[in-house]
């Protein structure tokens, strides 16, 4: 029997994001670089390039808050709409690469524990 081939990273990241959406009932999830390039997204067909570019704009705000207000390294940035839909960006690094996990959550949804778990899985998958 042939040994199972490891998944290429994009497919593996997409699986993690799909599971994240399922577990949290999230509308969308995106993994991108801080420069605004998408690495993976879920669901399929989500406008990830536009979302990644928008998230990159938010990264500027996070970086300025960190530098100019002497805020500790930013771990999370959230925007909440008046319908209480939340766009959350979680910042993390792996192998010298700065990444952002962004999730779009419905009102009053828990997301912190689920995104922590997804970040752990992404780190593991990146280094495998």
């Amino acid at each position, binding site marked *: 029997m042939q040994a199972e081939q490891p998944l*290429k990273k994009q497919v593996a990241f997409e699986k993690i994001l799909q599971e994240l959406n399922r577990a949290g009932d999230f509308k969308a999830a995106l993994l991108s670089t801080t420069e605004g390039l998408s*690495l*993976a997204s879920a669901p399929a067909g989500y406008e990830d390039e536009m979302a990644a570019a928008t998230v990159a704009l938010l990264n500027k705000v996070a970086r300025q808050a960190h530098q100019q207000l002497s805020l500790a390294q930013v771990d999370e940035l959230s925007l909440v709409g008046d319908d209480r839909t939340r766009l959350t960006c979680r910042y993390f690094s792996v*192998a*010298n*690469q700065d990444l952002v996990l962004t999730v779009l959550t419905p009102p009053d949804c828990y997301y912190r524990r689920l995104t922590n778990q997804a970040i752990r899985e992404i780190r593991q998958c990146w280094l495998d």
Partner: protein
Amino acid sequence: MREKLVAFSESQIEEIETCLDALVRNTGAQEILLADMTGQLISARGRLVEEESTVTGVAALSAGGYAATVEMARYFEIETEFRQITYEGDHHSIYSSNVGHSLIITVVFDRSIKLGIIRAFTNQAAQCLQEVVSRARVEIETDDRLPEAEKIGAEFGQALMDELEAFLLKEGS
């Protein structure tokens, strides 16, 4: 700035191939070429590998593409070092990145693969390759201190004899 050309030992070539294999595995890219700045092919992965003359030509083109961009920047009076070049097509794209100042890695990928994935993992591969290049440079500098006769060495003489023998056999048949 262009560095002196670098030569790799057999074990370093194996390390380079390991870096390229990891890049193929991580990204699913179809073709990967590693060449030096003069267009000399160092290693390749993908369909083109089976066609030696083609892959050598493409390596030269990749270096030429980089040189053309540098030259264009000179006309625009832009003083910068280009690290990455991307050509995006409808179905396939080509991404080139420098490895230090001496090598160019070129990756061909289809539209199902995101540019972010290619860029992130090519950067990772470039770091791995740069370590090999740095070690090769140290070895070359050490070799440069040896007397000329020793530098040519028995290994080169043997390789030359083997080539000559193969050539004569081919001519004789």
